[in-house]
């Protein structure tokens, strides 16, 4: 089905712009960095639909990257939903690099390529644990990829996120960090003011 043939409407079982974009860059950078997880910041613009190479690593892919999970979503919940597309061979939860707690993504591996494609079409973009989840075809899990790449251990997208997302630990961690600093600063200022006030009173 891939390649030359074009349907009259877009297909949902194609790799995402994210994947294509990354892979284009990767080949340009000569694949320096293999250890990655997704959902990082991408420039979606300037994305070119590349001609798929004959050795397309996704041609028989059976693994899906699943993103935008709540930190509280359990393996059992993922199992229950994703089994609707076929038996799951392996499920790897994404973990915070430091705390080893779920950080909002996972890899689901099926036995067949078709099950993975069906999952893209039928489950990607629907809700799990009341969040719209994202699925993307993935060339396959490699050890190390289960850990977040963000500075604080979680996913990159959870560093600078400025919306409050309860299921993913509130605000972005980097933002929380600066806020904490500012808060501390303010408190110190406050204390100073107080002292001054007291001084005045005296």
């Amino acid at each position, binding site marked *: 089905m891939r390649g030359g043939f074009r349907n*009259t409407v*877009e297909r949902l079982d194609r790799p995402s712009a994210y994947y294509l974009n990354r892979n284009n860059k990767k080949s340009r950078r000569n694949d320096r960095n293999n250890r990655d997880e997704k959902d990082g910041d991408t420039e979606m613009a300037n994305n070119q639909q590349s001609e798929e190479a004959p050795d397309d690593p996704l041609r028989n892919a059976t693994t899906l990257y699943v993103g935008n999970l709540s930190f509280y979503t359990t393996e059992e919940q993922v199992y229950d939903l994703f089994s*609707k*597309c076929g038996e799951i061979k392996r499920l790897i939860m994404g973990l915070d690099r430091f705390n080893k707690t779920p950080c909002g993504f996972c890899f689901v591996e099926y036995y067949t390529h078709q099950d993975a494609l069906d999952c893209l079409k039928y*489950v990607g973009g629907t809700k799990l644990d009341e969040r719209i989840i994202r699925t993307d075809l993935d060339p396959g899990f490699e050890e190390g990829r289960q850990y977040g790449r963000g500075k604080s251990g979680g996913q990159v997208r959870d560093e600078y996120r400025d919306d409050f997302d309860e299921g993913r630990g509130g605000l972005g961690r980097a933002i929380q960090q600066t806020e904490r600093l500012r808060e501390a600063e303010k408190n110190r200022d406050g204390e100073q003011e107080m002292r001054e006030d007291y001084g005045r009173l005296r």
Partner: protein
Amino acid sequence: MADYDRRQGGRGGGGYNRKRRYRDDDESDHRPQRRRYNEPPLHVRIRKQLLTLAESPLRRWHEEIQTTAHLVADNYDKEEVKSNFLELVPQIVVEQPLKTPFVAAVVLVANSMQPDVATDVLARIAPLTEEKIKLGEWRDVKLYLKLLACLQSCLEGDGLFPVLEELFNRAVELQTSNSDDTIGTELVKIILLTIPYIMAAGSNQGQQKAADLMDKTDVIASEPHALQVLIDPHHAEKGEESPTANSSLIGLLQKQLQNEALNGWELKCLPRPWQMPLEEIELQEKMENAQKHPLPAITVPEAVVTGPRALFPEVYMSVYANQEVESVPPVSSVAASLIRDGLLDTINIMDFNRNVTARYLIDVDCYFADGTFVKRATPFDRLRDIDGGRSTWKPEDVAVDAVFSQLFQLPSPEHKLVYYHSVLTEACKLAPAAIAPSLGRAIRYAYHNTHQLDLELGYRFLDWFTHHLSNFGFMWKWTEWADDVELPDIHPCKAFIIGALDKEIRLSFAQRIKGTLPPQYQVLIGPEKEQDTPDFKYNNEHTPFSAEGKELAQLLKKKGPDEEIQPVIARIHAAALEQSIDPLVSSTDVFMTAICWVGSKSLSHVLACIERTKDRLLDVGAASEAARLQIITSVISYWSAQPGVAVVIIEKLLNYSIVTPGAVIDWALVSGKAGPGGEALSKSWVFELVLNTVVKVTSRVRQVLASGVADGAAETEVAAMRDLFKSMDDALTSWAEGSKDQMMDPAEPMDGLGGKRAELVQRWGERWLRVFRRRSAIEEAHMLAAKPSSD
């Protein structure tokens, strides 16, 4: 437009905007250069227009068709226009079949200006049809024939009729040689679904031909197919008739068409975009006098084949049957079949983009004649006020009905069930106010008929219902079923409620679901369900083998070697012998329960623990029947509050061959461990466990057969499968007939059911039996069909 912009990027861009660059109004255009709108080339414009035909709710069919036809006819000398058009037309017809009449109208209008258009389209479609007939891809055959039927008015002589007659001849041959034949049935369905489009195309002289053909199809269409009882979505109780007993699709179609013939082929619901409004009388005349073309030969081979998908006779079902006001076409109306057919093709073809499918469902009224439906989102209660003669059909009901007919399709619909779930989810997201109430009435229908729904369909409904709710905040008007909470657990409605809550919890968590339920339901979610990890019974000093249990758990936790485990097991064996209980069963309970507890943090944990201990477990499983059953018992009793987890663990144990499919069946249907006195049969998770197990076995057999390796492996697998079905049949027959010893269990619960209890259990037995007899029959049929090719 995105379509075009994207392509342009790939070509280096900028090729088509030369004219605009020098236009005055561009001076004040501050948009960045690359964002400029470029007039796309003609063939791209034609593509876009063809693909969006009839999509607009403004219903400007004639304008759209004329402009497109003009563009095509006027530029037909351009190679790019011609080749793209001739490629796109056959593709739209098989990908977006609701648009076929409109595409046909474009061809007809274009034909009046440039006859080559029709010649070329026919020359393109005829061989494609022939090829699809050869391959047995019957839906595509039907869809190409539909286009040809719509073009009947520009065909010479009898047009498409001879092809249909030829197809019919094959059907007769097949049906006379074998009464179980399904290809003949499929051919008759195609013929009957094509005739209305020929008649709507406006050829008055076709009436006799149609009548002749229908005289012939009557024999096949009116005879109920041998397989129909197997695939009826309803399973009537003894002494009653299934509501769909007389709803064979082709049987209904035959009657509906005969009705139409009596009414001069009114075919009110079909769009006739080739009929121009009065002010276009000139064009209409031009079209009528346009050149006619011979239909290129379409040969039907002597032997026709089933094709890639197994064929079954079809039963027409509606979840909106028997309402006080008709919100969908009645089975007496041909509109029921024609609209359903168009929607089903669309749904099943468009599985690669559920958003487009959902859009089609919402827009269904765009593709049928004016007045076919009431206005969108008309509340059901208002239908009553619609006066005499006008349609009361709700487009939402018709659309939802079509999806449900697939969810309730036996033996199975074309795609995974979750696809149909996703279509309903998207439709509900697109137009919640219109779709949600329709879904509500469909849900009520299924709930109130759950006792006479095929059990497998009952399970599908449960699975859809809970999955759907999980996408919409688990909101449902539970209060309307609140009285049913009082029913005994074994009652079909109560069993549904229990099963639904369990499935909801699996997709979410107990506390959350509890919060969505009215007070009457709170008792159904006990504190044990809110506990993340179940207690380890050996932590209680009073549990026999408590010390050994704790010790084993410690060993498993620190990943101790098997040599350290063995002495503890030996101690249990010795103690059990002293108490003259089965030593292996005793140690297995302790060991397996300890594995469950140590692995209770997550599935990965328990799977890793099983992986580490699999050699010991394999030995235990191989040692005795009782031990195998105990493995299952231990897993399920540990996870009794969350059976979903147990089901997954058992599935993995099956993969390791630690337990056998036979053991699972035995455990569920015979041992009485899944619930006393036949209660197990009413539990949806028991059905799930057994169904999963059977599916595992049957798909394994299919896989082995398909691989075609003749090393005797296939024979062994097939024999094992037959044994499994046989033992299920035996066990279920005794439940269904009420001859099971346990039925007379004196310790039956005092739930006020009295004698009714036996009756209910028997009914569950019957329903189970039907499901697995059908599955067995279908596997046998599959093996029969697969044989010639593997020889």
